[in-house]
């Protein structure tokens, strides 16, 4: 990858990061969109798609309720895609094992996103005071400016998260991947399914539907039987 690619990925990180809370919220921040988008600007949408699928399923049931800040699934998606695309040829790896390794490394690093997000919102605490004061003294133009400044702190927090995931992730991937790649190849498919299962399970465990378990079991068994007997 060349420098231009990284800059583009950074732009995607900021745009999708803004979509999480601050701007528009048309859900380009969901892993299912953010990861293929990142893959697309880097010239490999399919890798992004695979990253996006795994992460989307994993975090399907997570709700951003109230003031609680979730781990940054958007930047995990963007970061994991950048890792998978950029480290592939360096490590002579490709396909699902690479995607899985990148995702597994990026997920814990997503915790940094919470830290930066919290920081951005605290910066906005000060902006909000300045904005409120500006409004009370009657200068509406500067009130609007203060409000929009908030976008900058959210964008920077997203960018910082993506950069950390990619930097630390590359480091880890470069040194750890050779040790584990055999095991990942062996366990590849079951690793992929385990992520899917965890996603399905956390959705079922937290959704507020009374009969969620029975509905799930019925649908699962039904589909299995249909596919099996077909």
């Amino acid at each position, binding site marked *: 990858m060349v420098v231009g690619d990284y800059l583009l990925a950074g732009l995607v990180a900021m745009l999708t990061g803004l979509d999480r809370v601050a701007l528009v919220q048309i859900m380009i921040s969901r892993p*299912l969109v953010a990861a*293929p*988008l990142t893959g697309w600007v880097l010239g490999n949408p399919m890798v992004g798609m695979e990253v996006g699928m795994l992460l989307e399923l994993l975090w399907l049931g997570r709700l951003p309720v109230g003031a609680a800040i979730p781990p940054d699934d958007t930047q995990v998606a963007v970061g994991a895609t950048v890792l998978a695309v950029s480290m592939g040829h360096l490590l002579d790896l490709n396909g699902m094992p690479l995607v899985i390794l990148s995702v597994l490394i990026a997920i814990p690093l997503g915790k940094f996103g919470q830290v930066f997000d919290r920081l951005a919102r605290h910066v906005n605490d000060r902006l909000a005071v300045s904005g409120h004061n500006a409004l009370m003294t009657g200068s509406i133009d500067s009130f609007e400016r203060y*409000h929009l400044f*908030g976008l900058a702190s959210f964008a920077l927090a997203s960018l910082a998260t993506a950069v950390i995931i990619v930097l630390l992730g590359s480091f880890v991937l470069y040194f750890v991947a050779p040790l584990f790649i055999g095991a990942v190849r062996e366990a590849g498919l079951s690793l992929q399914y385990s*992520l899917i299962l965890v996603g399905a399970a956390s959705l079922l465990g937290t959704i507020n539907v009374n009969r*969620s378990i029975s509905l799930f079991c019925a*649908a699962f068994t039904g589909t299995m039987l249909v596919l099996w007997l077909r």
Partner: protein
Amino acid sequence: MKEIRLSWLIFLRIYLRSFLLQASWNFDKLQNLGFFYLILPGLRHIYGEQIPVDVRQRHCDYFNTHPYFAPLVAGTTLRLETLSISGEEPAVDAETYKNMVMAPLAAMGDALFWGGIRPLAALIGLLIASQGSLWAPLVFLVLFNLPHLLFRGIGLVLGYVQELRAIETIQKCRLPDLAIRLKESTTVLIGVLCAYLAFKGCEHQELSAIWGFVQLPIVLLFAWLAHKGVTSLFLVLLTTSSLLLLALLF
């Protein structure tokens, strides 16, 4: 005094501004600046350039609701403001109205959009993605955003036209029950998706499909753990490390 009417151009500006509601989201007063920013075009039309200090004060205070429901609140708030300066006394004033509706509307939005429509749209996207199609993200975006973008616009107009009665209209729609129907569909679809992926996996490994059923107890165990508050991050680390260990050993 004749009641001031807001033009469609002002509604359009408020609609567009609603996409910036949370630009300065902060821990202290949450969407306070955002809400004032949202209704500013309307307030300027009602009060002119000199918006009275008490109006500025009351609409730049603690505010937090679901972002997609904010246009509805903005519509009613502006209508109540116009009513009160034209001398009519609405049953509830604008400030009280805001404080009363923001939390319940937030709950409705969380249930409908975050809990209902989004997972369902994402799952349909995932089913398409599992076929290897790159259309999946686009399908997800369209399925989610059609109701989303419409809802913002309808909410704004409904809130303005029907003022306090807009809540009755919303109540008649039984959105929380709709959300539950959507969530039920989601649980069914996730069962279908899991079974499909398990079947494909078994085929790929040339195993009998009966092995796919092994997934079921595992999912149920994990669901129970998730219900007990175990985070998905922990579950991921647990399963992957044990799988990797198994692969290293054998």
